[in-house]
């Protein structure tokens, strides 16, 4: 069929940061499909040079307003690895709990406030407040709980105050934790309502074979540190992040792009789930089954469902973590830090995929070099390749400009891109 398609989206809405989508099809031939990132760089990697080690988590947390906890924890892990500090069990558990709640907060924000409007034919969540108040209330309750627990453990839901190299400046009261344990048990019902709602939607039918990269689970679903694995069979240590990301610069983007075995790869909830399905909580595997989400799934729109599945998983895991924390005696929250020269890398699975921080220090603990590789930065090339395939395929299926614009926007949103973070 001869078809002409023009799509120009300037500053795509309902994503974090600034990106454009341009698609041009003439006589059924794809001339252009471009995911353009125009965000202004802030130069965090230069900013930190010459500053003391304790600046790293405090400042790099400001790379991103949505996953500031993830950045702070990746930064702390990198510094601790450089200074050979091993966090104790209590700190480890509290950090994972904190990170779980950031994941829940971020996933629920994305699913219910940014993605849902597309599935319900609305421009934003605001009209849904009147038309589907119950859903919005469930979503706000889930997100509210996640944020409250972040306050309780990290001191603040955004740019946490208690998280430091060596541990925490302050511990939560046990009574508070116990109360959160109860709230978490109750929130499962709300999550099920959201899950039921999503089973009613048909996500776009589109697949493109993709390499998926994530941390590798060993005893459980992976969150902080360890080896990195790809669905194409690569496995490396987190220290080798440069070989895993191979950053390069392209004209259409102020964020760098990445590649591994192929021209692009994907990170994020779908990648984690595809690579670590066996470690999901049993209840959660059932939910995945209801959506036909079985590894390895190559439909990028299923990242939304993977986020939903992970939301329930982190709640189940948090309930266990709180039980364990409550049954142990709290010890000193903070280890002593002995700064010195060295290099450290920290890899953390944040809501949108693997995040790497790396620092080099001189003998006084002053930062000589800093490097951060952001999940969305790793996804940009994959978004680009998906976009090309999607535009061609759906133009072929006879979709018009408006329909392709919506599908392309939904595709980019499915990755839950954090654009300003990827440019940093």
């Amino acid at each position, binding site marked *: 069929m001869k078809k002409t398609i023009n799509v120009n989206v300037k500053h795509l809405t309902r994503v974090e940061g600034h990106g454009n989508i341009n698609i041009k099809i003439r006589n059924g031939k794809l001339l252009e499909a471009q995911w353009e990132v125009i965000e202004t760089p802030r130069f965090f990697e230069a900013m930190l040079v010459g500053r003391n080690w304790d600046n790293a988590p405090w400042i790099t947390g400001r790379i991103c307003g949505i996953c500031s906890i993830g950045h702070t924890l990746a930064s702390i892990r990198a510094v601790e690895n450089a200074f050979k500090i091993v966090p104790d069990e209590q700190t480890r558990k509290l950090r994972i709990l904190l990170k779980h709640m950031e994941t829940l907060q971020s996933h629920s924000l994305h699913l219910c406030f940014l993605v849902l409007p597309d599935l319900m034919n609305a421009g934003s969540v605001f009209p849904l407040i009147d038309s589907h108040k119950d859903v919005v209330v469930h979503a706000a309750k889930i997100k509210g709980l996640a944020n409250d627990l972040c306050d309780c453990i990290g001191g603040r839901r955004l740019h946490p105050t208690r998280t430091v190299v060596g541990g925490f400046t302050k511990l939560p009261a046990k009574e508070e934790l116990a109360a959160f344990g109860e709230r978490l048990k109750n929130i499962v019902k709300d999550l099920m309502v959201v899950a039921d709602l999503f089973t009613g939607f048909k996500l776009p039918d589109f697949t493109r074979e993709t390499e998926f990269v994530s941390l590798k689970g060993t005893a459980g679903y992976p969150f902080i540190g360890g080896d990195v694995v790809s669905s194409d069979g690569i496995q490396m240590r987190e220290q080798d992040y440069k070989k895993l990301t191979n950053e390069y*610069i392209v004209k259409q983007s102020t964020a760098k792009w990445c590649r591994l075995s192929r021209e692009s790869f994907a990170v994020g909830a779908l990648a984690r789930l595809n690579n670590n399905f066996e470690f999901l909580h049993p209840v959660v595997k059932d939910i995945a089954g209801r959506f036909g989400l079985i590894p390895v799934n190559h439909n990028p729109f299923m990242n939304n469902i993977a986020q939903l599945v992970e939301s329930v998983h982190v709640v189940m895991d948090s309930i266990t973590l709180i039980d364990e924390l409550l049954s142990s005696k709290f010890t000193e929250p903070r280890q002593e830090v002995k700064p010195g020269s060295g290099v450290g890398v920290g890899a953390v699975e944040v809501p949108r995929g693997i995040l790497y921080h790396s620092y080099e220090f001189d003998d006084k603990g002053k930062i000589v070099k800093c490097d951060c590789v952001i999940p969305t930065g790793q996804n940009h090339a994959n978004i680009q390749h998906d976009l090309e395939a999607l535009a061609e395929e759906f133009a072929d299926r006879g979709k018009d400009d408006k329909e392709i614009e919506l599908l392309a926007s939904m595709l980019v949103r499915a990755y839950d891109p954090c654009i300003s973070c990827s440019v940093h």
Partner: protein
Amino acid sequence: MKAKESESKTYLGIPLYRPKVAFFEFSSCEGCQLQIINNENTLLDFLSLVEVVNFREAMTEKSDDYEIAFVEGSITRNDEAERLKKIRKNAKILVALGSCACFGGVNQLKNRFNNIEWVKKQVYGKHPIDTAPVRALEEVVNVDLRIYGCPIKKEEVEKIVLHVVLGKSIDIPKYPVCMECKANENICLFDLGEPCLGPITRAGCDSWCPNNNAGCWGCRGPAEDANVGYMKKIMKEKGFSEKTILERLDCFGGFAQFPELKKKGKH
């Protein structure tokens, strides 16, 4: 002008006029905007006070018809400056939202290097990239109201918006964080051997960091009559290095006008 809507909402029995508000962001982490939707308990009440006509991070519809513009982030490229000037033209009230907008925030840390080419090379190598020294909003346009903090405190924003809607005057604390910290009965961090900028930093955050046993980094900028020289002297007496003090003072840009900070880095 907006009779229909003003009839539908009331506050303490008084009919309210719902101003049209728009949110915009420049170079930032977008966290201050998120703070607006991060307070789930009061979000719906807050939304009933105003009519949101522009909020790219949350909605697809856009409009240039607004009265209050909340602007987050700092200006780091000329296209941003041009966009900001347009917003200024459209808005009756322009509010700088957060420390990036008020004084450059952490972004202005790149300004401490003399050579911007070195900064670019650190991140992009030889690849050409467009960037300029970081500016606060008020270095480009007139700013009517400032909401300080990195991040902003949601309660403060809600109070300010409510006051704008009610036509009440807005007062942001001029006294230092220490006052709030004392009222919160915290143990002073100096007694625990930690540095803290509470004595010279503008309050309003309810001593957020010291409440969590972490020292203040001055994200809200200087309190009225802040004596930075004296602060440095006290910190030195407590055994903190010049570097520790300066790194806290220059972190968010709020103290940039003080002579104690006029030094530049080696690049």
